[in-house]
Each structure stands twice: as structure tokens, then as C-alpha cells.
């Protein structure tokens, strides 16, 4: 079984992002970038399937400018077999990403496609679902467990109020939640081996897609700063303030 994993280059989760002074975007100048944590979970899940002998090949695909090859290399260092970069310029919207991924799916014919449920930059949570709609493949989003059984998979989903279990026919699309697994670290030997693994580069035209923008960012501004706290003298004063000023208890 061939598994396709989508990985996105995002600002490292440790970085405190700042808005640009002109409010046009967040400032990405000299900021540490990394693989989106949910995508990393997707890579880990695919590699585990391969180690278990269920998957035969794991392909990591990323969409972006040349720098996203770093995140593909990370995926290769973690254990993916080969990589694909779809070369685009500037920001690409979820719908365009989904269309490009559909193009890759048509080329590669994977049985299983694993994506992060969202990326921590835009927090859109759309690509997997759009991809499902475009390809007509069944989807199991927010997976906290994934079991492959012949030509079916069982996906346990984290939903409000509990867990939902779905049975899907392959080929299928799965998006990962935080608790699906704990990604490994790439070892130094595997980082060095990743340099030699195959990486193909496609243009959107190769996949028959013309990237279009449907959204315009009007303004990016930081959330209001938290005001300094105060010390209250007694429990009574605290209760009074919670009741009458904050009005959070009655």
C-alpha cells in the first residue's frame, strides 16, 4: 500500500510571532520554520504503517517555494521514502492546496492519504475535507486512532462529547489529531541518508492546476495586551470583584 503524506512549512511552534508594522502579515523575517506539528504526526503514522509492513511506500509532499524542501527532507529523515515538492509562490489557499494534492494523487495513486487536521499558521482546518470532496474519497478527520484492515480502515475521531468510530473503504483520506501518536526524532544517520533520497519537483501546471487567490488579507494585528493583575486583600474582596466587576459568578 502506498501512503501519501502532506507536510507544510510553518513558523516553529516555539516562536512568538509578531505582526509586521504595516499590518500586512506576520513577520517571517529570520523566524525559525519547522514542519507543522500535525503534519509531523501524519508522517509518523505513515512510517509506523510501513514499519508494521502495512504500507510499502511513504511519499511526503509539500507545496510551497523552494524552502519547503527542508520540511520534505525532515520527513525523509523521519523515514519517508521519497518526496515531492509542488513549487508555488507566495501563500496558497486551502482550496488550491487541495486541488494540487488531488493532482498528486492522480499521478501517484496512493491507497491512503494522511494530512494534519490543520496547520498552526492559518488554523484553517479545511484542506483534508476539501480534498475529500474533490477526489470523492471517504474521509476520517481528527483521527486519534487509525487501524488498517485489508481494504478498509477504522478511524477513531475525537469529536465533541467523545469518540466516534468510522469504517472507511480505501483509498481514503485521514487527518490527524494531536493524540494519534508521538512523533519520533530523526537520528543523525537518518538525517544524512535523507540527503540521498529522491525528491521530484512539479509545477502546478504539471498537475493541471492554476493557482488562484480567492481570499484577501485585510489586516494582521496582535491581540490586545493583557493588563497587569492586581493583588486582592481578602477572599471576600476577590468574590466581590468576581461577582460585581467581572460578573463571572452570581
Amino acid at each position, binding site marked *: 500500500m502506498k501512503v501519501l503524506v502532506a507536510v507544510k512549512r510553518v513558523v516553529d511552534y516555539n516562536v512568538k510571532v509578531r505582526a509586521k508594522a504595516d499590518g500586512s502579515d506576520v513577520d517571517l523575517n*529570520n523566524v*525559525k520554520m*519547522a514542519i507543522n506539528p500535525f503534519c509531523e504526526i501524519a508522517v509518523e503514522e505513515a512510517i509506523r504503517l510501513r514499519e508494521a509492513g502495512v504500507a510499502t511506500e511513504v511519499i511526503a509532499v509539500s507545496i510551497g517555494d523552494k524552502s519547503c524542501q*527542508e520540511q520534505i*527532507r*525532515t520527513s525523509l*529523515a523521519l523515514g519517508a521514502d521519497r518526496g515531492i515538492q509542488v513549487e508555488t509562490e507566495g501563500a496558497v489557499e486551502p482550496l488550491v492546496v487541495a486541488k494540487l494534492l488531488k493532482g498528486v494523487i492522480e499521478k501517484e495513486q496512493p491507497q491512503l492519504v494522511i494530512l494534519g487536521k490543520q496547520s498552526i499558521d492559518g488554523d484553517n482546518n479545511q484542506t483534508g475535507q476539501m480534498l475529500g470532496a474533490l477526489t470523492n474519497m471517504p474521509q476520517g478527520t481528527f483521527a486519534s486512532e487509525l487501524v488498517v484492515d485489508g481494504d478498509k480502515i477504522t478511524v477513531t475521531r475525537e469529536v465533541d462529547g467523545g469518540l466516534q468510530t468510522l469504517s472507511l473503504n480505501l483509498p481514503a483520506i485521514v487527518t490527524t489529531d494531536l493524540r494519534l501518536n508521538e512523533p519520533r*526524532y*530523526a*537520528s*543523525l*544517520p*537518518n*538525517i*544524512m541518508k*535523507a*540527503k540521498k533520497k529522491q525528491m521530484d519537483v512539479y509545477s502546478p501546471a504539471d498537475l493541471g492546476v492554476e493557482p488562484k487567490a480567492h481570499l484577501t488579507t485585510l489586516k494582521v494585528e496582535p491581540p490586545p495586551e493583557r493588563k497587569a493583575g492586581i493583588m486582592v486583600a481578602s477572599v471576600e474582596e476577590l468574590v466581590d470583584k468576581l461577582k460585581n466587576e467581572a460578573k463571572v459568578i452570581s
Partner: protein
Amino acid sequence: MSLTFDSARLPNPHITPEHEEWRAQLRKFIDTEIIPYAEDWDEAGHIPIELWPKAAAVGLLGMGYPEEFGGIKEGIDSWHTWIANEELARIGVGGIPASLMVHGIGLPPVINWGSEAMKQAVAPPVLAGEKHIALGITEPGGGSDVAQLATTALHDGDDFIVNGSKTFITGGLRANWVTTAVRTGGEGAAGVSMLLIPTDAEGFSRTALDKKQGWWASDTATLYFDNVRVPVTNLIGEENQGFKVIMTNFNSERMFMSAAMEALGRVCLEEAVNWARERKTFGKRLADHQVIRHKIVQMKQRLNATQAYIRVCYESMEAGNPNPGDIALLKVQASETMEFCAREAMQILGGIGYMRGNRVERIYREVRVNAIGGGSEEIMRDLAARQYGV
């Protein structure tokens, strides 16, 4: 921009995306497997034995050693090593890298000068983190004057009979083998050999030196050899050629100690800056008082100089012509920088800096072991003066 551990690092044109990847993955390993427990291990005085195989799996133990022994050498250069030493220093608990990476001083003599059989027996289990090796040079009678060491190894048939003792030996309690400097010949440097001594040999014993100023997490021991019988085949290199082995080893030890010391100074800078930006005195942030601002940039100034100097020395190692005098002085530059940064950071932190449980307090206590071990500042200057033909 603020001054953090990462932003206070000068650019280095030799760093490739693979190096950055190594830093990122190693940092993740350290943040998950070490940092949450580091302080407890230090207070407890040891690190769990399971850490070695984990460090082996991530590639830390095997870095720079031949693949045939389970290492990773192809494509590995000084910049990988520098990164590893920086990241290990960032923990701020010096005893952890000291003990975890002690094979970095114990194993290279075996790899570079040992017999094929010795390498096959020792290197794979050490690099897999299953067995341990230490380096025994210093003796109760003296450390700086290596040429005067008094532990003897006398021929007896196919064996040596070893008598004497070694002290302050890092990893000495845990070691399965000790790469030991012994006297096989006459007086002075020309009578010194290196001998691999298994610690299960009869007549070998050891005691812990567990009351130390710092490096609590590291096991330090005194070793005793009482008529220990060791096969002649355990010689590392030629008989009476041990001094050369010791001296070659020192260059790389001094490099990784220097890299660690600079990074420890940078940890102090980061802690001091964070505090100075938060803490208010006399109506403004500490960072707004000129005296404090100057302390901060003086730390940065010295760290810059040390980083640039480290890079030059690594460049000459990469080019295959390291200068032992320059490396000796780098070690002094690094320990003085670490000392300065620990001092100034402590002053900026004030009383809280004196309390146990923060990195600056511990680094302050761990300055001296760096300024003394691996060749003291005085000895480094002396060596440099001789190297430069003064």
C-alpha cells in the same frame, strides 16, 4: 529582536540545512528526554543508565565514529560536533554531558591507535550505549604534569601487572573499561603507555567522589589498581608511545569543552536578559539601567569573540592542520568568558540567582571544573607559550 540562546549565535557560513536539521532533532530529543528530568538527576547525583541507549539511537553517541562500529562518520564534520556540544550545554546541567559523552575522551584512543580486535570488542557496545568507557590520566599525585605519572605496568609473560591509582575520573564508577595512562618505561614522557584496563579484572577497585562543587549528575571516581593483570595486547598504540596518544586526544577534548563553555555563557546571557527585561527597580526595568545594559552587551561581546575563535579553530581542524597552541588558548578564552558571563548573570539575577534550581546558579558552580579539567588555564597558557616558541 532579543538576546536568546539562538539569536545570540553569530552566523556561520558552514552551516547547511542538514546541520540545522540535526540541531532541531537533537533539541527535540533533549527537550523531551533530558531537560524535564535534568535537575532531579543532578540533585540525585546520577543519570539513569537507560539514557545511553536513547542517546545512541538519536545518533549522539556514534557521531563522528566509523560506521563499521555502529557510528556515523560519512558527511559528519566539526559543525555537527559543535552543534551537539552547544545543545548539550543548553541543558545547563554540566554533569549530564560530562558523563553521557565521556566516551568522547575514552574511546578515540582505542579507535585511532587500538588493535582491530580491541576496536571490535569495545567500540560497538560503547557506541550503542550498552557499555561504558572512561579516560584515566590524572593521579592523586598530580594531573597537570602528565609526564610524571606514577601508575606502573610491568611486563610479566604475556601480561602487564598494573599498580597505582587514578583520581577525578569522570564515568569512573560506571566504566567497563578505562583507557589508562601507565608507566611502562623510564622517567618522563618517553616512558608512558596507554593501556585498556577492563574494570572486572581482579585487583581493580573504585570509590565514588560524590561531594563536588558541581557536575553532580556525573559520576566521578578514584580508581585503584592492585596487581591488576592485563594482557599485553591491551596496549593502545605502541609501548612507550602513550604521550602522543594523550596529546592527540587533548585537541578534540579542548574543542568540545570550549564549545560547551561558550554555550553555557550564552545560557547565562539569555537568563540575564529575560530577567532584566521583566524585573523593575527604581521605577524602570533593570534592562533600562545603563550599568545593567552594559553588563549584558559585555557578555555578548565576549561571547562573540569566543564564537568567532571557535569557528577559526574548527576551520583549521577541518583543513587538517589544527594548532594546539591556538586551541589551548581558545580553552582559556572560553573558560574566562563563561566565568564572566556566570558572574554578570548572577549579579543581574540578584538574590534569586543564588537559589538552587536555576541554570545560572549551577553554571556558576561549574565554571571551575571547566577552567581546571582537560588542562587548566595555567597549563594551557604555558603550552601555548611553548608552541609559539616564546
